[in-house]
C-alpha cells in the first residue's frame, strides 16, 4: 500500500502531461473527422469552392448554383490576404471569378475566358471538372437566349452516370474511427511512456533505492508491484482513451472494427509500458527521459504515418518506418478499414502485426532483464 501511495503521488504530479497529450489527440481527431452520413450509397466528394459572381446574370447565377450544389463553401478570414491564405492552407481548393458580361458572352456563343485561383490539388482538379462540364454544356447549346440556355442545360446536366457501391459498410465512420486509433500512437508513446518512465525512475533514484534496500520489503516484491502498477496505469489510460473514442466515434467503437482496434491499442500500450521500463534502466535523469520520449514519440508518429498519410511518403522512408512497432500498430488500423468480411484469411495481416508488437514487447523485456542483471 505504501508503494502504491508513493506511486500514485508521482502519477498525480504528471497528470498534466496526459491531459495535454489527450487534448492534442482530441484536436487532431476532431479537426480531421468527416461527417458520416451513415448511408452506404455513392456520395460524391465535395471540393471547397468559392464563386465570385461579378455578373449576376441568369447564366452566372445558374453556374454558381450548379457549382455550390456539388461543393462546400468554406468560411475565410475577412482581410485582404484571406483568400490567398485559404488557398495556401488548402481550406479553399478552387475560386472562380465570373467577370461582368459573362452571361452575355455565353449567350452570344463567345465562350468567355474564366479566371480561377486553383490550389492545384486533387480537390481543385475535381472542381475544375465540374466547371468544365457546365461550361462545356452551355457553350455547346449557345448561341441562344440566357433563359433558353439555362433551361436546356438543366435538362442535360441532370443526367449523371450511375455509380454502384460494393461495400456495405459506412466507410466515412470507419475511417474516422481508424484515424482516432492511428493518432492514439502519439499520446501512447508521448504520454504513457513518459508517465511510466518518469514514475519508475523516481523509485530508482539512489537515495530511494538505498531506503528500499534496507526496508523490510524485498526488492523483488517492490519490482513486481511497480510492474503491476505500471501496467495498471497503462490500462487505466487505455480505458480513458476508449471513453474518449466512444464520445468521438459513438457506436462504431462497439463494432468488430472497434474491438479489434482496441485490442491493437492494448498491445501497443503493453509494448509502450515495457519500453518505458527499459528507458528507466538506460537513463537516470528525468530530462534525458523527457528528451528520448519526445524524439521517439514525434519520430515514430511521423515515420509510421500518424501525421502524414503513409502513401504520401517516399518508399525509403516507409521502409525505415518498418523497424518501428508504431508502423505495425498503424498498419493494422489501415488494414482493418479495407476488410469487408472477418475471417482468418482477411485478418491475417492484423494478426501478423499483433505478433510483431508482441515480439517487440518480449524482446524489450529480455533486454530489460539482461540490463537489470548486469546492474546488480
Amino acid at each position, binding site marked *: 500500500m505504501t508503494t502504491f501511495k508513493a506511486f500514485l503521488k508521482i502519477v498525480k504530479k504528471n497528470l498534466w502531461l496526459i491531459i495535454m497529450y489527450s487534448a492534442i489527440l482530441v484536436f487532431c481527431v476532431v479537426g480531421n473527422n468527416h461527417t458520416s452520413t451513415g448511408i452506404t450509397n455513392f456520395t460524391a466528394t465535395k471540393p471547397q469552392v468559392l464563386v465570385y459572381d461579378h455578373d449576376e446574370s441568369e447564366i452566372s447565377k445558374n453556374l454558381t448554383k450548379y457549382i455550390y450544389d456539388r461543393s462546400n463553401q468554406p468560411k475565410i478570414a475577412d482581410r485582404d490576404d484571406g483568400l490567398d491564405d485559404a488557398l495556401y492552407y488548402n481550406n479553399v481548393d478552387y475560386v472562380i471569378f465570373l467577370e461582368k458580361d459573362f452571361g452575355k458572352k455565353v449567350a452570344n456563343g463567345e465562350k468567355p475566358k474564366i479566371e480561377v485561383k486553383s490550389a492545384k490539388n486533387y480537390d481543385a482538379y475535381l472542381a475544375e471538372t465540374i466547371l468544365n462540364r457546365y461550361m462545356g454544356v452551355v*457553350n455547346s447549346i449557345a448561341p441562344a437566349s440566357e433563359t433558353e440556355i439555362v433551361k436546356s442545360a438543366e435538362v442535360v446536366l441532370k443526367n449523371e452516370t450511375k455509380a454502384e457501391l460494393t461495400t456495405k459498410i459506412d466507410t466515412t465512420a470507419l475511417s474516422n474511427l481508424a484515424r482516432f486509433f492511428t493518432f492514439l500512437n502519439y499520446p501512447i508513446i508521448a504520454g504513457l511512456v513518459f508517465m511510466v518512465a518518469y514514475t519508475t525512475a523516481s523509485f530508482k533514484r539512489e537515495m530511494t533505492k538505498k531506503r528500499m534496500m534496507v526496508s523490510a520489503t524485498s526488492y523483488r516484491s517492490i519490482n513486481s508491484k511497480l510492474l503491476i502498477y505500471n501496467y495498471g496505469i497503462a490500462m487505466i489510460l487505455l480505458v480513458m482513451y476508449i471513453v474518449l473514442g466512444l464520445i468521438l466515434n459513438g457506436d462504431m467503437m462497439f463494432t468488430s472494427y472497434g474491438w479489434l482496434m482496441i485490442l491493437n491499442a492494448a498491445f501497443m500500450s503493453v509494448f509502450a509500458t515495457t519500453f518505458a521500463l527499459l528507458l528507466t534502466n538506460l537513463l537516470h535523469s528525468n*530530462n*534525458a527521459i523527457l528528451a528520448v520520449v519526445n524524439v521517439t514519440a514525434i519520430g515514430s508518429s511521423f515515420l509510421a504515418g500518424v501525421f502524414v498519410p503513409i502513401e504520401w511518403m517516399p518508399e525509403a522512408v516507409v521502409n525505415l518506418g518498418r523497424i518501428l512497432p508504431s508502423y505495425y500498430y498503424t498498419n493494422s488500423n489501415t488494414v482493418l478499414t479495407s476488410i469487408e468480411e472477418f475471417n482468418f484469411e482477411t485478418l491475417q495481416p492484423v494478426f501478423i502485426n499483433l505478433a510483431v508488437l508482441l515480439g517487440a514487447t518480449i524482446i524489450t523485456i529480455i533486454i530489460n532483464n539482461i540490463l537489470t542483471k548486469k546492474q546488480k
Partner: protein
Amino acid sequence: MRRLWYNLKITFKNKELIFWTFAFPIILGTFFYMAFSGIKTAQDFEPIKIAVVENEKNQLYPVYHQIIDGLSEPESENRVFETKYVKNQDEVTAELDEKKIEGIITFSDNDFPKLTIKESGMNQTILQNVFTEIEQSIMLGKQLEYSEIKNTYAPRYEYIMIEYFSLMAMACLYGAMISTKALDKNLANMAASGKRIAVAAISKAKIIVTVLVTSYITQLIGLALLFAYLTVILGIDFGGDLPVIIGFTCVAALLSLSLGIFISVIFKVSENTKDGITSGFTMFGAFFAGMMGPEMKYVIDLNLPIINKLNPTAIITDGYYALVNYGMNERFWTSVISILIYAAVLSSVSIMVLRRQKYDNL
C-alpha cells in the same frame, strides 16, 4: 568579457541544454524532411486505374471505347485513366475489392454504362464526373465546347513549409531554457552559486546583463545551426530575403530570452519542472501553430484567433509565413511588433519581481 566567456563555457558544457536547444530541433527537422519530401509528388495527379467490361452489343460502346482510349493515352498530358479491357466483370471483382483498381465500367445491351466502385472517395468522384461528362456530350450529340480557364494563383511555397516555420519558432522558444538555466544559477533560491553571488561585492546588474548576453548568443548559435542545416543540408528554400529572415529570427530570439527569464523568476519550482513548463508550453503552442499538420494553424486562426494571437510559437510562425509569402507587409510587421510587446511585457514583469525579491538576512 571574461565573465561572458566563462558563462558561454558553462552553457555549452550542459549536455541536456544543448540537446534541447541544438539537437532536438535538428532531429525534428530531419523527421519532417523524411515525412514531407514525397508530399508534392503525392499531390500530383495520378491516372485512375479502371477496368472496362467489353460489350459490342451496346451501340454506344464503340464511342466510349474511343473516348476512354483517348483519356488513357500514356503519353498524353490529359491522361485521366489507366484502363484495361476485360470480357467478364468477375475477372476484375477481386481487384476492385483489393483496391487495385478504382472502378469497373459495365455496359448493358442498350443503355449508358454503369460504374461499379468499392467505396466513395476522391478518385471515384472524378471517375463518375468524367463519365457523366461523356454521357452529357453524347446526349447533346456533339463534342462539348469548353471555355479557356486561366489560373492566376501561384503560391511561392508549398503549404508544408508551415512545418519548417513552426519548427524555427519552436527552436526559438526552446531557447528559453538557456536563459532560465543561466539565470537560475544566479538566483539565491535556486543554486549555491546564486547565494555566493548574492553576498558578493559585485554588481548584480552586470551579472544579469552578462547572463542575458550569453544566453542570447547561445540561442543565436543554435538557431543559425538549425537554419543552416535546413537550408544547406536539407535544401529547404526559405526564400531569397536572407538578411530579413535572419533579422526576424534575431527578434524572435529576444522573445525566448524574456520568456526564459520570466519562467526562471516567476515559477518557484525545481529546474526540471521549469524545463517541463518550457517544453510543454512550446510544444502545445507548436501544435496550434501547425507543427503536427498545417491545417491546425488555419483552423485556429479562423475560429479561435485569440489563441494564436497570444501563442508566441504561432506569432513567430506567422511572421515567417508572411515574410516568405507576402514580403515585409503589414502582417509581417504586426508579428514583429507583437513579439517585441510580448518580450517587453515578460521582461518588465520579471524585472519587477526580481527587484522585489529579498532573502532572509542574518
